[in-house]
């Protein structure tokens, strides 16, 4: 089951560059929340703060509070524990190139020390079914490399890999921007199904995509969150002038 995310006074830096400034927002459980905004506005940095991937960069720094469910992720837990509860899908599909499809999906469990075959088999099958890839790959699970799949399939494989560790939140950083329209619509269908079980945060450059998949939308600009509201309101009647300008294509 998904959990809500509560962000209070979040600030983030890359070196001396203040990329995120005083972000406050509540992301509802079991919904899809879209983050839109022009390039370099801090959307990606924001989602990377939600699973503490931001701090893997040695010059990065972060302050503020992020509560996922009832866990304060910067106070109560280690980064590796957070990342098991908050899955992430990246912009470019990044399967492990030397691993089979099966091993790619099982990687999260195997590398954390699970080795029970039956559990692994079940998890791989369930995750691949959840990411709508099972029927396409079930005959060659262990023979074929993850890197030999098409781009769209690779991205669904990455989603399956993230789902296999049974997270509560799924972060997607422009998951469809490197894919063709058919693969994109498959990913969007998938988001629709997944949000019944997981809390989804999706960064996107494609405003139609945000309108299609998300209940809530946040608009980021220059490291600040300008507006956060229901998707319908953001796209039809935004309260901030800058949001309106961006939505109507006047900049960005």
């Amino acid at each position, binding site marked *: 089951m998904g959990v809500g995310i509560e962000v209070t006074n979040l600030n983030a830096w890359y070196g001396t560059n203040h990329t995120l400034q005083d972000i406050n927002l509540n992301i509802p459980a079991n919904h899809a929340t879209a983050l839109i905004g022009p390039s370099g506005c801090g959307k990606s940095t924001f989602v990377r703060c939600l699973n503490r991937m931001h701090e893997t960069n040695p010059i990065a720094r972060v302050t503020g509070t992020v509560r996922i469910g009832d866990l304060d992720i910067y106070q109560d837990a280690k980064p590796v524990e957070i990342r098991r509860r908050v899955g992430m899908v990246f912009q470019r599909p990044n399967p492990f190139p030397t691993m089979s499809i099966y091993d790619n999906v099982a990687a999260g469990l195997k590398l954390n020390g699970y080795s029970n075959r039956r559990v692994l088999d079940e998890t791989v099958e369930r995750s691949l079914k959840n990411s709508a890839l099972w029927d396409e790959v079930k005959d060659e699970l262990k023979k074929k490399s993850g890197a030999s799949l098409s781009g769209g399939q690779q991205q669904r494989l990455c989603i399956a890999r993230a789902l296999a*560790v049974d997270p509560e939140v799924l972060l997607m950083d422009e998951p469809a921007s490197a894919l063709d329209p058919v693969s994109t619509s498959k990913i969007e269908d998938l988001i629709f199904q997944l949000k019944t079980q997981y809390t989804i945060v999706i960064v996107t450059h494609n405003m139609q995509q945000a309108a299609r998949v998300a209940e809530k939308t946040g608009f980021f600009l220059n490291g600040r969150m300008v507006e956060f509201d229901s998707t319908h309101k953001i796209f039809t009647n935004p309260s901030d002038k800058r949001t309106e300008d961006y939505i109507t294509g006047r900049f960005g």
Partner: protein
Amino acid sequence: MHLPGCWCGQLRAVLRREWGETGTREYGEQKLRKSNDLRARIRTITDGGATGIAVLSTVLVVAPLVAIFVYLIYKGASSLSLDFFTKLPKPEGEPGGGMANAIVGSAVLLAISSAIGIPIGIGGGIFLAEFGRGTRLANMVRFTADVLNGVPSIVMGLAVYSLIIYRQKHFSALAGGVALGIMMIPTVCRTTEEMLLMVPHAVREAALALGVPNWRSVLSITVKTASPGIITGCMLAFARVAGETAPLIFTAFGNSNWSVNPNDPISALPLEIYRYSISPYDDEHRLAWAAALVLIVLIVVAVSLVRFVASRGVLKGAS
């Protein structure tokens, strides 16, 4: 290219005003066609020239190896017999005999040197690329490895002589293996580092984002992804020390009898080649040629074998 209409019109108007007739479209197109013809011809010539240089370079790279190999077969193949692989060398001046002890000795020396050089080299490479990146210690290690790579092999032999032989008071296979092993370290270390740095950042991030601890991600994901390159580096180092003579002269020393004991002096193919090729007897010269041939063939076989075994684990379609 499609320029917006208004833009194009303005440009044409300006050109016509400035250049008169030469600004017209017909004139421009004609001129363009002419210069395109010329450019196409230049491109064809450049293309041919570049391909020619590449082919020539390839030939120059392969030629020495082929020449050496052919010459070795010509000089050495006639002295190869079953005796060569099974018998011990005869006393100086007596015809016949073989190099069984040298072949086994080389194998023992290379096993010792690989056991020393490969783990230390790979470990150092992992440190340089993953854990120590940008630190002063890493820069020092990298610099040391590069200097070590440039140390003449005879100096390596002398160093090990003063460190081990001088204290032990006798020559030994172990000391020879240590000398060769130290020579392997910089090559293995630096290729491991380079190969690890080539693993895409996205792959590391994928592992970290699954909640895998950094050390585990490095060992199970990054090193595994880079393993074909790392194996190539190890094979390069292996092949290089397999033919080294100088570091063995003061350490393994050579031995005309059977020995596999690491604490005793041991024979090796390069040592035998050296000894036989400066001997006054024609028969021994021929044996030296044969030994050189066997050495090269054994290196090629060993390297190919490792590559074959390593490539069997690779999946269909893996990059």
